[in-house]
Structure formats: structure tokens, C-alpha cells
């Protein structure tokens, strides 16, 4: 088994605001400088001798972060309500409602804007960008969404397989 790791902490980051509805502390609007890291394993190397060429993975990681970076409030789509044709959005957070311009709300198809859900969302975004010839060789892949440099949630994109 061969493996590569890409740790984006400190070098590949996004500034985002979020709110986790119902949480006593994280239910209040707040922000993080977030980052991603990945581990990818393969049983055999490609023709260049790589587990996977970093240049195929890093742009995908940066692409996921760019969707979040300085784009406004990151929330679960279900919390949002379109109110008019001007594009304003109401974000329902328990008893509070935020009235925001639509282009300042990042509505994601996730159950809540937790690090766990954002890791799964980012993993799916990144995975779509990996070429098929690499997907065939990859035996394991995980992505960690770091909310702070030492607090993150990991999503396993592809689990290790076995046959007996």
C-alpha cells in the first residue's frame, strides 16, 4: 500500500461564517478560518510513479474552499427561504431570522453547517474532480475539514475493501 497526504492547514484556507442551529454556543453567528487535508491510498502507482499527482487533487481542494471563502454565511439549504425576486434570503435560525442578500448566503445541500457535514460535502466536491483512471487505483481516501488548526472532522470518501 502506498499513500499520500496533503495538509492544507496554514497554506490552503477559507474564511467563512456559519451557524449551527440549536447549538448553545455555535448557534450564534460566528466565523472560522477553515482548511482541508486529505489522505489517499493506492495499491499501485500510476505511470509517473505517483499514488496520485498532487496537481490533480490540490485544485479540487482549493475549488471546494473557494465556494466557502468570503462568500457570506454558510448554511444548510433547509434553513433558507427565498422572500422576493430581488434575491433576498431569510435564514431561519431557531427563533431568529437573518434577512440577507442572496449572494451573501452559501446554501449547501447539507443537514447542518457542522464540520462533519462540511467534510462530507467537501469530499464529494473533490471526488467529482478526480479522473477515472486514478479512481480505479485508489483504495482509500479521506478528507478532514479543519474548523481550527487543531479541530476537524474527517469524512471517509472511499473505504478500504477486502475479498476473501
Amino acid at each position, binding site marked *: 500500500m502506498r499513500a499520500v497526504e496533503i495538509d492544507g492547514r496554514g497554506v490552503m484556507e477559507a474564511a467563512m461564517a456559519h451557524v449551527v442551529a440549536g447549538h448553545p454556543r455555535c448557534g450564534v453567528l460566528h466565523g472560522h478560518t477553515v482548511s482541508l487535508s486529505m489522505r489517499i491510498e493506492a495499491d499501485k502507482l500510476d505511470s509517473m510513479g505517483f499514488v496520485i499527482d498532487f496537481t490533480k487533487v490540490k485544485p479540487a481542494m482549493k475549488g471546494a474552499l473557494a465556494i466557502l471563502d468570503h462568500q457570506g454565511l454558510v448554511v444548510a439549504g433547509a434553513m433558507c427561504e427565498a422572500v422576493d425576486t430581488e434575491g433576498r434570503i431569510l435564514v431561519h435560525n431557531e427563533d431568529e431570522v437573518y434577512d440577507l442578500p442572496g449572494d451573501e448566503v452559501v446554501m449547501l445541500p447539507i443537514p447542518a453547517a457542522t464540520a462533519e457535514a462540511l467534510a462530507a460535502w467537501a469530499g464529494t466536491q473533490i471526488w467529482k474532480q478526480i479522473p477515472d483512471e486514478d479512481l480505479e487505483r485508489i483504495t482509500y481516501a479521506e478528507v478532514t475539514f479543519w474548523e481550527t488548526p487543531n479541530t476537524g472532522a474527517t469524512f471517509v470518501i472511499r*473505504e*478500504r*475493501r*477486502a*475479498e*476473501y
Partner: protein
Amino acid sequence: MSDESLGNIKERAEACQRCPCAQSRRRVVIYRGMVEPRILFVGQSPGPREDELGVPFVGPAGSLLDEAFGIYHVDSYGVINIINCFPPNNKFQESFGIACQPFLVDKLKVFLPGARYLVTLGRDAEKAIWEVQRLYPGLFQHLTLHHIIHPAAVLRNPGWRSKWDGDWREFARKVHESS
């Protein structure tokens, strides 16, 4: 999952002469799936294709099962059968299940501690699992059990396709609601 445990089970199964399947098999068929599956599927017995390749659910029934994994977004799965060997004339008998029960228990001991769901495919698997559950209730304490019609039954009788779809929809709802 311990590779050593599964390797050991396979070695012992290859030497097993406990029932007539020892004469009808070409290869023993133990497991296919993730190293640490969240959902363990239990079928009845290997078919001709499985016997040829030594891997469970790789024939037509396996294709139907894989199709369901895709449709219902089941990523973390493992599949085993209640017996390890292709039975004579491709006909399962309860006595083969009884002879193979120690192996079934060993396979369950490898996978169940890390699993959250156990899904039986077909009545024979369901009955075999009930019996193991009676003998080893502790193995099942943390698990949610679910039953789905066997994919081979759907292939034999296309009229059961709607039951297959219904069983899967119910299972998928259960899994996705709790995740």
C-alpha cells in the same frame, strides 16, 4: 477487521469436510466488501460464479445487489453467506447451514462489533441469523436487524421486484434517518 481472522477462517474452511459441499465446491467463498463495514449483508450460499471466483455475490444476484447499493447510496457494506461453499446441484439444504454455523459465527464475530446494521437476504439467512442470535445475543445488542428478499429470488420471479424495491426503500430510510 482483522485480516488474520479472515485469513484463518478461509484456511480452516478450505480444509473443512463437515458436509457434502466439500465435494461440490471449487473454492471457498468468505467475504467481499469494506474492511470495516457499517452494514453487513448475509445471503444463503455461493452460486456457480462465486464458486469459480471465490468471492461472494459476484454473479447475477450480486449485480442486482450492487445496483441497489448504488441506487440507495450504501457505501459501507460487506457481504457474506451462511455457508462458505457451492452446494451440490446448487441446492441449499438446512443441514449445510448447521454444519457451517461455526464458520458463520466466526465471520459475524469479525464484522459485527464494528457494524451498525445486519441485513439478511432471504428466509434461509434470516433463520440462520435468528439461531446465532439465540446462541450469542451479545453479538447483536448494538445492531439494527433488517430483512430483504434475496436478489436471486427476484431474478427467478420478476414479479417480486416491487417487494425488493420496497424492502430497500424501507431499509434506506432507516439508515439515512439515523445518519
